[in-house]
């Protein structure tokens, strides 16, 4: 029963992701750059959910693994080849090693102490990347491609041009199909489809983990660690494994970010970036399969839309109203849009934490139940 439902979910998810350039066309979000970000942050959030959603261990340090992934990928582009496959591989492996180290230290504590430790370690990684390890990270300028990089596997390209990232010749930036459907100009590019395939793969892995004995143990850790220990289970390696797995997902996301745009900067490692993935997972619905992806899309979409709205746009919206009312509304609304997107996000996040701890997925479920009257039927069944 559950297995059937999972398969249906996976199929719907796959179709949705593959058709995204078409589906998002009416929303104005269907350009490759944004779609790629949806997919990549979706992967980041899926991975984070395996740690936070299942075990309840709240890490503020996952930006570090995103950064490590990006740096590893760019180094691979510089030294080996512009093919993204070895780059992604190194991203995942390096992030995994890094997560093992940080996880080993911070998982010696649990609860709030764990959160604080991950926060401190992430901030330390940021400072390391920003200044201390400048030879490796190029400090505040960020790591970039250069013409004189060795790239030992690649044939020499045209003189004076930076080569572009590719997957066996398919260039990430290349739009391979550009049809017009229903008057919308659609762009299908390789970069998005590479990210999309990775996202689908990540989603599938996440389903398998959720339904596995390993996943069951992780959920047991969240609900009662004492009982689990007295049941003969050593919980620490389980949490460490979950930590490393989620770190590897973050590394993959970081590697993909660098594959789409081959540069890596320290700001990607700041703990507030790690805070953003917390927002995504909580907003979407922690511990659910689809929630993290929804949260990622939601935040990245509105970040993009809201930041484009300024007072002029608002005045256009409210122009049908009397002047005084329109001016009033513009004054009220404008702090929340444009550069004030952070305010909206923060407020929204608080509302979700306070009133809807299950996130958007839970909200949707409640609404569905209201509509279909499942509650009433269940209550009736109980009474009978």
């Amino acid at each position: 029963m559950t297995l059937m439902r999972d398969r249906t979910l996976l199929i719907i998810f796959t179709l949705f992701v593959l058709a995204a350039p078409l589906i998002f066309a009416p929303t104005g979000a269907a350009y490759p750059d944004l779609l790629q970000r949806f997919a990549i942050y979706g992967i980041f959030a899926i991975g984070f959910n395996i740690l936070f959603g299942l075990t309840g261990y709240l890490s503020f340090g996952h930006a570090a693994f995103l950064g490590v992934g990006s740096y590893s990928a760019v180094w691979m582009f510089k030294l080996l080849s512009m093919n993204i496959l070895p780059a992604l591989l190194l991203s995942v492996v390096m992030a995994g090693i890094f997560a093992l180290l940080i996880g080993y230290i911070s998982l010696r504590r649990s609860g709030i102490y764990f959160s604080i430790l991950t926060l401190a370690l992430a901030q330390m990684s940021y400072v390391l990347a920003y200044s201390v390890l400048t030879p490796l990270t190029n400090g505040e300028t960020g790591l970039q491609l250069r013409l004189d990089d060795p790239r030992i596997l690649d044939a020499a390209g045209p003189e004076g041009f930076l080569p572009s990232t590719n997957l066996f010749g398919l260039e990430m930036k290349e739009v391979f199909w550009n049809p017009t459907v229903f008057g919308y100009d659609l762009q299908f590019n390789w970069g998005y489809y590479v990210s999309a395939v990775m996202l689908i793969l990540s989603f599938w892995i996440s389903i398998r983990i959720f339904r596995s004995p390993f996943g069951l143990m992780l959920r047991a850790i969240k609900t009662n660690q004492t009982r689990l220990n007295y049941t003969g289970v050593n919980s620490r390696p389980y949490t460490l494994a979950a930590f490393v797995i989620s770190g590897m997902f973050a590394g993959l996301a970081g590697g993909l970010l660098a594959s789409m745009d081959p540069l890596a900067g320290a700001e990607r490692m700041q703990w507030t970036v790690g805070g953003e993935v917390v927002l995504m997972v909580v907003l979407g619905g922690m511990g659910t399969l689809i929630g993290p992806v929804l949260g990622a899309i939601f935040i990245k979409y509105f970040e993009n839309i809201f930041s484009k709205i300024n007072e002029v746009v608002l005045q256009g919206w409210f122009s049908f109203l009397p002047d005084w009312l329109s001016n009033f509304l513009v004054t009220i609304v404008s702090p929340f849009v444009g550069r004030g997107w952070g305010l909206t996000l923060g407020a929204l996040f608080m509302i979700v934490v306070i009133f809807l701890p299950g996130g958007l997925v839970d909200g949707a479920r409640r609404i569905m139940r209201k509509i279909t009257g499942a509650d009433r039927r269940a209550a009736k069944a109980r009474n009978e």
Partner: protein
Amino acid sequence: MGILEVQNVNKRFGGLQALNNVNLDVAEGSVHALIGPNGAGKSTFLNCLIGKLKPDTGSVQFDGQPVLGKKPHEINQLGVARVFQTPEIFMDLTVFENVMIPCFAHRDGAFKINAFARVLRDKEIRQKAEDILEDMGMKEKMAAQSGSLSRGDKRRLEIAMCLVQEPKLLLLDEPTAGMARADTNNTIDLLNHIGETRKITKVIIEHDMHVVFSLATTISVLAQGAIIAEGLPEEIKGHPKVREAYLGEAEV
């Protein structure tokens, strides 16, 4: 030679001698009750057995292996299961999942990454979990969230989770504490039922004399950190030292 041997265990908290040279020998297959007035050191003793506290001196051997200094999960893997004063179960999970977890722990050990296996495809584990729930009369509640069970059912579930691991020794820490008479009697019946079908040694730490005399085959009396009497239930009932210990408490 008992299955659980405790020798010369001492534990001191500052000026308080919580355990004073405690010796205990639990025979295989017996139901050994440990009784004593409040503050006698029962909990301290139990915590020493399961690795939560480390006694200052002494040794504890289970099935010929030293137990002291081992972590709770290691002790469990040796074959010791524990029932807590307030039922410790996985409240957010279903009854079925609650029982499957100890099945996995029993079969796969303290740690195994099987992230691509499927819980629901594991026929062996499912069968085992269903059988124990059947045996405990909880099969119809399989899909319920265990946090929503009644207190008696939570206790029943916790015992099921212990039994499914086929432990050699079952530790019960005041299994009927805070229960109404009816629930207490149900629990006694349940434990007697377990005794009929399975040969598990049990150590019961208990306050309630009714429970103790309904279940125990051997009784040890702990008072002020020391064992003051040990014997068959009939012997303990009339033992002068025991009366003194309990009367002394009553006066306070």
